[in-house]
């Protein structure tokens, strides 16, 4: 192995990686925010809906979970505009895809969370005279959120990693930045070492921070 590491060119173009990392985080945050809304609405709807609605929501969840993300990214960016007269940028297209994608996973998370809320809590809510809507807002959702927080953190971390797929439609996130430096400097090993380190440090920092938040929630209540 006659390869000598030289990071100079990487540092010269580091703004591509740093800017990319920030964009990756931004994509992940916006997507999970929308995904949470989709997941919550559909999960609450699911547990109280009839058979038809349940089947439709289940079909959405199963479809998204069983198709490669990269195909969904292509489908939304290249496919959808050919049938609907709609123009959107690559980042918007990707956020749209990742939101729908995370929504499908979060429906499952929230649905099982809602079902895990102990019956006794709902009975207690009834006993003090709360309306169904009040029971949902004040009893069921807060308990469910605490139950699902770990799964929510995990989903967010994996969405952060999934943002690397955005590079295939030229969204200039972290993986795209790495590819750019790779092709323009040929310091291949260096750029992927640095990129890998950035994903790892960011991912594990997020994980650590989210675990702290979870612990806070558990003890505060």
């Amino acid at each position, binding site marked *: *192995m*006659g*390869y000598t590491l030289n990071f100079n060119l990487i540092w010269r173009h580091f703004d591509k990686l740093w800017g990319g990392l920030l964009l990756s985080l931004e994509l992940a945050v916006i997507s999970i925010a929308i995904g949470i809304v989709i997941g919550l609405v559909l999960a609450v709807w699911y547990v109280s809906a009839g058979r038809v609605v349940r089947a439709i929501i289940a079909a959405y969840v*199963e*479809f998204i*979970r*069983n*198709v*490669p*993300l*990269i*195909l*969904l990214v*292509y*489908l939304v960016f*290249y*496919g*959808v505009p*050919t*049938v609907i007269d709609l123009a959107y940028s690559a980042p918007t297209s990707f956020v749209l895809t990742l939101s729908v994608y995370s929504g499908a996973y979060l429906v499952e998370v929230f649905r099982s969370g809602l079902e895990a809320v102990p019956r006794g809590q709902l009975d207690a809510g009834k006993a003090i005279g709360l309306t169904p809507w009040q029971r949902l807002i004040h009893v069921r959702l807060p308990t469910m959120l605490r139950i699902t927080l770990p799964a929510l953190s995990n989903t967010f971390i994996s969405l952060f*990693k*999934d*943002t*690397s*797929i955005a*590079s*295939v439609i030229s969204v200039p996130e972290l*993986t795209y930045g*790495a*590819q750019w430096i*790779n092709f323009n400097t040929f310091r*291949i*090993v260096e750029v*992927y070492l640095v*990129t*890998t380190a950035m*994903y*790892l440090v960011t*991912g*594990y920092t997020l994980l650590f921070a989210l675990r702290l938040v979870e612990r806070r929630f558990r003890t505060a209540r």
Partner: protein
Amino acid sequence: MLSQILYALPFLAEGFAVTLWVSLLVVVLSLVAGVLLGVGLVYGPAPLRWVVRIFSDTIRGIPILVLMFFVYYGLPAVGVHLQSFWAAVLALTLFKTAQVVEYVRGAVASIPKGQSEAAMAIGLTFRQRLTSVIFPQAFRRFLPPWINGVTDAVKGSALVSLLGITDLMQAINQVIGRTYEAMPLYILGALIYFAVNYALSYASRRLEQRFAFIRD
């Protein structure tokens, strides 16, 4: 439009065969590597446990795409030349192996301590305890998540298209390049992936039910 797609079907079928071949290789190779490393993680000496733990946490902490580019572009730079097909298989296998390691660890950890003690009490040696008591039970707990995870391998295989390998994903893109029928072809592709993966997850659910007795 329909005739164009029909015309493209044999080509898509070839791509689909590559998708299945990549998935199969990754699943089999990662199973072997993952079980060995997983057992090493649970029962191995401390240095081995550390190496496996770091391997697993590192691999699971980076996007598969980055891992694949790293392997594909990085190996030639350090003098290792692999065909793109094998570079892709290697990267996906590394990723899947880290998952299998965690399934193995979880499965073994889920066996109550009393099982080991009861096996000790009748005089079984360490190896006998593993082969006669722990592994048969751990296997049943390992199987459902593992089969479920096979769908990840099939989905992950779509990334090999980015290294110019003509799998189903790449075949679809190429047909779209000729016919400009993007939407129907992506939907067709999605349905094919869906059919394969849904069948796999159905199978895993059936297996879970079959081994449900173990959860008493």
